[in-house]
């Protein structure tokens, strides 16, 4: 079959000595980054993009390094959920429900290894889903003209907050802010400077890497500085027992149905626009609870309650790559950062990517398979070592994060102006986080703003200034409808869903303590 020969070609690209070494380094660094409290997949990858860039790696190699970091961070994130009861990011929230009680019962080692296996199952089958589904989606995407792309970008922004978003006005504000920042610089079509205020440095526009590192990494440092002395998880480690590290076969068999169900649910949630990994892990956990919780053990340290959300979350992460690669529209925060990786390598994702850069696509997919196997092999024996990383106090860690951010940006441009812009974005990110304004739409706006405008103007040039071209095809109308529904739906159901996620979190917490 065509798919298999492409995949074999991908493995030929990925299986060079250098790429395997990069995948190994990426998985290792990623797991450490994910395990550190306060650093998740998005900011972990964000710090490392400029480094991969200034090291002069070619596109495939850089992508392999960074996706390994991304997958590694997804794996590592569960370590702090289970050992400290601190989810690294929202999808990991559901893992704390049964993971932390298991750790309290002295089964931390088993919880960590079973969640590692569940992560592997979820990610492995989701990557197969990506292999078969993405080329199909590419065929659909070839029907897209500029008007349809404009509607698709609008859809991405409208649904980005996801079903669990609480305040759509703030998500819309964040998107407008990001799009507004993207407009800075010389207009690509007419050559006039916009919003540059006569500052020559701004004529090139704001580099999105500078914005990403500032918004994600530096704002994290400021948040820690603000909460210094509140006790951010130090010392809690002693209360949990590791127990045995390798789970028994009977435990793996016991969890297999839960993992497989959760994988399917998670993958579907990941592919759908705007749903993302949070919904994937939430759906997986609540479905598993409804299906298997006969003795009321969920929330008190049931091993299936650890396996289900981890499989769902990682399957959703793989599923989210489908629209990102095939359409160029990311469905979640972490895929938005991966889109930044692709754009910084001068690769535009979308239907043409599969034809023009098959090496990149299939090499990346092969790298996902390799990275998964490596993570599984690395995580089971070395989990104790990764757990020890949690002991590094933030007062040593956060200065390193700040300094590495500066090094990365300075390495690309050697420009003090870029460093200052990064500091401004750090402060902006801190303020927006305090005000509960999501940062991902800002990033996506900066990333996609110019493409979105270019498609609008292309469509209007074709129609000679007739605005009705934007709704002239059934496909475009359909996209607009989905966008509107996706934006309005969270206003109706979002609060309820978010409350249920947090209520599920509160309930077992009270029975444990």
């Amino acid at each position, binding site marked *: 079959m065509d798919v298999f020969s492409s995949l074999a070609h991908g493995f030929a690209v990925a299986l060079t000595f250098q790429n395997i070494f990069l995948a190994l380094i990426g998985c290792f660094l990623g797991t450490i980054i994910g395990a550190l409290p306060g650093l998740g997949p998005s900011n972990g990858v964000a710090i490392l993009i400029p480094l991969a860039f*200034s*090291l002069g790696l070619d596109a495939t190699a850089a992508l392999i390094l960074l996706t390994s970091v991304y997958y590694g961070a997804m794996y590592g994130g569960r370590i702090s959920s289970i050992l400290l009861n601190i989810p690294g990011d929202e999808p990991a929230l559901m893992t704390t429900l049964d993971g932390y009680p298991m750790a309290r019962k002295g089964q931390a080692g088993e919880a960590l290894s079973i969640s590692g296996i569940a992560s592997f199952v979820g990610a492995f089958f989701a990557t197969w889903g990506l292999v078969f589904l993405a080329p199909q989606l590419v065929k659909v995407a070839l029907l897209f003209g500029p008007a349809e792309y404009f509607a698709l970008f609008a859809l991405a922004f409208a649904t980005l907050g996801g079903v669990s978003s609480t*305040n*759509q*006005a*703030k998500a*819309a*504000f964040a*998107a*407008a*802010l990001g*799009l*507004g920042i993207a*407009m800075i610089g010389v*207009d690509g*079509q*007419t*050559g*006039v400077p*916009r*919003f540059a205020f006569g500052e020559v440095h701004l004529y090139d526009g704001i580099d999105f890497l500078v914005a990403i590192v500032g918004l994600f990494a*530096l704002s994290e*440092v*400021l948040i*820690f*500085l*603000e909460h*210094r*002395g509140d006790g951010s998880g130090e010392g809690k480690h002693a209360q949990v027992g590791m127990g045995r590290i390798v789970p028994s076969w009977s435990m793996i068999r016991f969890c297999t149905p839960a993992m497989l169900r959760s994988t399917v649910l998670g993958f579907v949630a990941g592919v759908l626009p705007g749903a993302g990994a949070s919904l994937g892990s939430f759906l997986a956990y609540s479905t598993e609870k409804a299906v298997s919780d006969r003795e009321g053990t969920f929330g008190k340290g049931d091993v299936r309650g650890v396996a289900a959300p981890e499989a769902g979350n990682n399957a959703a992460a793989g599923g989210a790559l489908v629209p990102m690669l095939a359409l160029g529209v990311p469905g979640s925060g972490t895929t938005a950062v991966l889109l930044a990786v692709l754009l910084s390598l001068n690769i535009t994702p979308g239907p043409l990517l599969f034809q023009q850069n098959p090496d990149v696509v299939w090499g990346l997919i092969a790298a996902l398979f390799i990275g998964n196997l490596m993570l599984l092999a690395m995580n089971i024996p070395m989990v104790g070592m990764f757990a020890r990383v949690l002991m590094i106090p*933030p*007062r*040593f860690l*956060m*200065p*390193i994060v*700040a*300094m*590495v951010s*500066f*090094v990365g940006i*300075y*390495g690309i441009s*050697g420009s*003090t102006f870029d*460093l*200052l812009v990064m*500091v401004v974005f*750090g*402060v902006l990110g*801190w303020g927006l986080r305090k*005000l*509960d304004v999501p940062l991902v739409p800002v990033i996506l706006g900066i990333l996609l703003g110019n493409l*979105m*405008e270019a498609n*609008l*103007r292309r469509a*209007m*040039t074709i129609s*000679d*200034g007739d605005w009705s071209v934007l709704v002239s095809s059934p496909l475009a109308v359909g996209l607009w409808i989905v966008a509107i529904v996706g934006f309005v739906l969270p206003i109706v159901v979002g609060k309820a869903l978010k409350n249920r996620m947090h209520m599920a979190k509160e309930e077992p917490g009270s029975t444990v303590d």
Partner: protein
Amino acid sequence: MGDRLFGGIGLALAAFYVWQATTIQVSFISDPVGPKTFPIIIGALMALASLAIIVRPDPRPDWPAAGRLAELGAAVLVMVAYAYSLPVIGFVPATVLAAAYLSWRLGTAPITALISGVGTAVGIYVIFHLILGLTLAEGPLGI
């Protein structure tokens, strides 16, 4: 600052943005849409979102007390000073000072903070410059 004030600032920003967009010069060859229209749409979207935030504000976030706010301001100033001093005094000295300051303000004892600053600077220098070959800022000392 509550959400009402935030929405107000957003509205002012949107107004400023739209006004700036209208002053963009249009050259004589242009497509039907031109360089102004999309920014104006964005400004309008921002204004609408800001209005919605004003009408339905979230609960006020916990802003840090004045002392802690000054602390954050000082950290930002140190980062700005760091950005300016990099090309002047070189990567290692600048990083020692900045990392030690941040570590000290995050609760490390001064001497330990200085040691961790030296460790951070030397560690990054060795890994990123000597091993990975990344270009770092050079000062008069060559480091």
